[in-house]
């Protein structure tokens, strides 16, 4: 029936600055030679571990500080609290000479707790259980005027951060200075935060984060583990190592908050939405805020919309931190599934309805390509299939606005022709290092092999933190400016010596040319330098030619198979189309998109933090029971870099994770004829949905070509 989609990876050829560059640090990372902060283990250093509450809410009864201090190797026990508000909450820390002493010290501490009543989710709060509020008079009228009303409730789980390299830092004294090996996505942010705990001025602090094992929004702050490390370093004057273990990583390094969303809307027989009210409840654990969700996203026309009704709901769990496109994947899941449900009610092809409700011209063209590549023509009507294995197709969308931050990049030209790109901005695994090198190489006209990169250190030129997808869009203009300056300097020298017009000189693959004539090799031109030449390119955060004015758009299409006897979902293919202005390095750009799809698939099918309803203890603070996608669960992914006529570098970090779960949920709806309105799409939920009647249709299905006509 459905033939496998064509492999069209080749369509990305020629779209980027560097088509064939591979990660500069790939080998180092694969062999383990790359040293992360977490690898900075020295023989003589102190180990720090927080004393954590084992229950959702509890008060401390007793603690044997003396016994802990008497444990050989334990040097300090700091207790600063006597109650915990969530599993993983900390009340102090222990410092010891080695890891074993640390563990024994914590054991000797023998903290005993009394469990207290706690809340474990959004629905433990009355506000969330209350019936929907009344829409404003205007919205109410719009809804009433429509031919049909529709109401539904959707939910998404807490998705925990769990970086491959856990959160933490290692602090090393260096004379007057402290060198902080931090696992961070903000070199300069950490430098500003850690001084308070170290008791040192900013000028005496050096941050090193040459390699970072992921962050996704959770590593903008040093966290409690970092603060305790700073205090211990200040007290002892010694080297201090403070990193979370895997369990702590799940408990207390932030998450994508859960969402409960109630919707009431009015729609006409042709799928036009006249008016809608959305109520959203964000599960923020013990935090007061941070539970917002982008729904509706603004991508689709909803008629008269009630003003946002959002409430953050507290309960006894760790609080959220930004996570890749905060608020967006959960919002997209609700909104896109809602649209498919409306389409089904009206007997419309959901793609046709989406085209009507979406006014982005770029996405309109992306819809065509996505439909073609996924094989949309093979899509059976929602709920029309029988049999055990049913195939479904679904679409999701995203957009990402423009953001920018000041950045500086230094380029040093050495007399041997070698170029050094220097930037303090961190590479959290996205490929920042490779992107900067490839951009400078291409801009000057020399092979990538001529370039090395010094990155992730606060002694290097300042740049943005990796957040809001602004990092590459902001550093790229600075790198282009620096490359231009370096190139001009060398060409000016050549022009002067050779009595040529500098404006007529070009550089091609390391050879300086005038017209078609070879003038001199880049290396030989540089040999004339008496010392290395340093130039710095700067991006002031304002609009410029090198900066990509405009937003990034994306459309993803998923094909799934659902085993209707077992409720298992197998995601077979995801077409992921993404615009990002000018892609720098093809492979890392594709990998950014594929990573988004993988993370989104994992979110759609597996990930959820599970709290024990009685005690608030996190039952799955490990990778055995906190399920994440593995190799066998990974769909075939076709990333499409959508270039159009765009220049300048735009956001790519976050947007690709936004549409995936939505597209998969829609595909599942298409396959089984009932929406599953709660993430993750677990087998038990699919089976429960299958036990329900088929989703209602309020308008008889229109023949397919009528759909197409409606669009015009």
């Amino acid at each position: 029936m459905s033939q496998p989609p064509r492999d069209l990876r080749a369509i990305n050829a020629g779209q980027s600055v560097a088509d064939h560059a591979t990660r500069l640090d790939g080998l180092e990372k694969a062999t383990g030679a790359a040293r992360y902060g977490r690898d900075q283990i020295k023989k003589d250093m102190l180990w720090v571990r927080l004393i954590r509450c084992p229950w959702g809410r509890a008060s401390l009864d007793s603690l044997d500080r003396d016994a802990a201090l008497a444990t050989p190797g334990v040097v300090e026990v700091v207790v600063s609290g006597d109650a915990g508000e969530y599993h993983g909450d900390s009340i102090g820390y222990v410092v010891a000479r080695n890891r074993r002493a640390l563990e024994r010290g914590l054991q000797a501490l023998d903290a005993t707790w009394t469990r207290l009543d706690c809340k474990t989710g959004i629905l433990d709060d009355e506000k969330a259980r209350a019936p929907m509020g009344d829409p404003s008079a205007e919205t109410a009228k719009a809804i009433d005027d429509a031919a049909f009303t529709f109401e539904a409730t959707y939910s998404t789980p807490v998705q925990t951060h769990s970086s491959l390299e856990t959160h933490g830092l290692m602090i090393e004294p260096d004379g007057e200075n402290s060198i902080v090996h931090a696992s961070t996505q903000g070199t300069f942010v950490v430098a500003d935060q850690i001084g308070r705990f170290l008791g040192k001025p900013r000028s005496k602090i050096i941050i090193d984060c040459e390699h970072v094992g992921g962050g996704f929004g959770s590593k903008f702050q040093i966290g409690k583990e970092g603060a305790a490390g700073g205090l211990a370093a200040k007290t002892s004057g010694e080297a201090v190592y403070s990193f979370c273990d895997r369990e702590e990583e799940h408990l207390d390094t932030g998450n994508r908050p859960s969402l409960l969303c109630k919707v009431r809307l009015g729609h006409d027989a042709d799928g036009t939405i006249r008016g809608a009210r959305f109520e959203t409840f964000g599960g923020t654990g013990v935090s007061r805020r941070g539970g917002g969700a982008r729904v509706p996203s603004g991508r689709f026309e909803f008629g008269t919309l009630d003003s946002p009704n959002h409430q953050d709901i507290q309960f006894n769990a760790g609080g959220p931190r930004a996570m890749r496109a905060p608020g967006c994947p959960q919002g997209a899941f609700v909104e896109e599934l809602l649209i498919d449900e409306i389409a089904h009610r009206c007997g419309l092809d959901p793609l046709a309805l989406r085209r009507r409700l979406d006014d982005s011209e770029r996405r309109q063209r992306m819809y065509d390509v996505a439909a073609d590549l996924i094989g949309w023509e093979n899509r059976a009507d929602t709920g029309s299939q029988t049999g055990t294995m049913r195939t479904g197709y679904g679409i999701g969308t995203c957009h990402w606005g423009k953001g920018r931050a000041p950045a500086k990049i230094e380029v040093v030209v050495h007399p041997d022709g070698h170029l050094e790109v220097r930037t303090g901005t961190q590479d959290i695994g996205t490929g920042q290092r490779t992107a900067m090198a490839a951009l400078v190489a291409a801009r000057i006209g020399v092979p990538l092999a001529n370039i090395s990169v010094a990155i992730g250190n606060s002694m290097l030129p300042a740049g943005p933190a990796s957040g809001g997808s602004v990092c590459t869009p902001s550093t790229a203009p600075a790198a282009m400016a620096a490359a231009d300056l370096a190139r001009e300097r060398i060409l000016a020298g050549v022009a002067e010596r050779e009595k040529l017009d500098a404006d007529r000189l070009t550089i091609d693959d390391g050879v300086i040319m005038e017209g078609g004539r070879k003038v001199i090799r880049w290396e030989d031109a540089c040999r004339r330098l008496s010392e290395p030449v340093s130039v710095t390119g700067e991006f002031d955060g304002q609009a410029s030619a090198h900066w990509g004015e405009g937003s990034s758009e994306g459309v993803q299409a998923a094909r799934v198979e659902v085993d209707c006897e077992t409720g298992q979902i197998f995601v077979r293919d995801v077409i992921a189309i993404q615009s990002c202005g000018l892609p720098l390095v093809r492979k890392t750009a594709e990998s950014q998109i594929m990573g988004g799809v993988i993370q989104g698939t994992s979110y759609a099918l597996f990930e959820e933090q599970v709290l024990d309803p009685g005690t608030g203890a996190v039952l799955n603070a490990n990778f055995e029971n906190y399920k994440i996608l593995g190799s066998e669960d990974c769909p075939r992914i076709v990333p499409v870099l959508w270039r159009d006529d765009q220049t300048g570098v735009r956001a790519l970090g976050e947007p690709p994770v936004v549409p995936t779960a939505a597209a998969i949920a829609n595909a599942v709806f298409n396959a089984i004829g009932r929406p599953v309105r709660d993430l993750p799409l677990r087998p038990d939920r699919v089976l429960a949905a299958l036990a329900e009647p088929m989703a209602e249709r309020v308008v008889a299905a229109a023949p397919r070509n009528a759909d197409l006509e409606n669009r015009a």
Partner: protein
Amino acid sequence: MNPFAYTSPRNTTDASALAVPNGDFALPVLKSGGMDLLDRMKEGLERPDLVVDLTRIDDPTLDAIDAGRIGGRVTLAMVAESEELRKSAPILGAASGSAATPQVRNVATVAGNLLQETRCWYWRMSQFDCLRKTGDDCPAREGDHRFHVIFQDGPCLMVHPSNLAPALFVLDGEVEVVGGDRTRIPIRDLYADPAVDWRSASVLSPAEIITGIRFKSAPNSAFIALKQKQSFDWPMVSGYAVLDLDGDVIKSARTCAGAVAPRPHPLPQVDAALAGLSIHDEARIRAACEISVDGADPLPGTAYKMTLLPVAIRRAVAAAAHSAGTARGGDA
């Protein structure tokens, strides 16, 4: 982890003697691959003062695979890859190859797999006490028990974790033991009755060491795991079937369910219903498998397993009939 002494005896007689609590060591423990034991020690669930490591014992029979016998120290990876077993009892390779991850399977042993402890997430967390530890309650009953039983054979609601044990049930397997009065224990007697003893992982005495497993040959045998994730996941429910065929007719059948009860859960009523059916009689096979849930008493969170169990058994029967035998999947 607590400090402990370590020893690696060269023969099973010494190992068996060392494993018995005595004046020097009150809490000795046997270690094979250590995949399960070390996890429990790290979580503080187990605080042995002596670890008796079986990996240095000089006895090739511990590592041997034959048509009807596997040494206790053979790894799950070796079972999964054995050509010999693929012919004599494909169900064993399928069950072993589907467990855990390649890394785990390269270390985990047959004996350790049979005697591993429950994965109940309450039990695995040191802050919870429960019936299976020293307590009087089961926190899973009122808690989140989505991975727990549908057959409440005792007060503890854990499901038996081993992929291999139910396979031995349908193969009429036995475990070989040394160190006690007996040398063979039928697999059906290896685990205590959960209505009577819900704390022990087996009926073995501390001195008894499993040296191998024995089983009948069963070319028409198959295993099916229904998992949420196909990489690195425990089965939600698993089904095991051995068929004795006369042409296309099932002369006799042995079926068993995994991940639904505190022990592997044999299904004699299904076996009886399958006897005499043609392997092509889908409707009657389906009906026979439907009764696999007879006697089940699911928890609110495990109702979905009621749907899964008949499917797992039916698919295992179908695979066994076509002696494809192996439903792999789950190579992380």
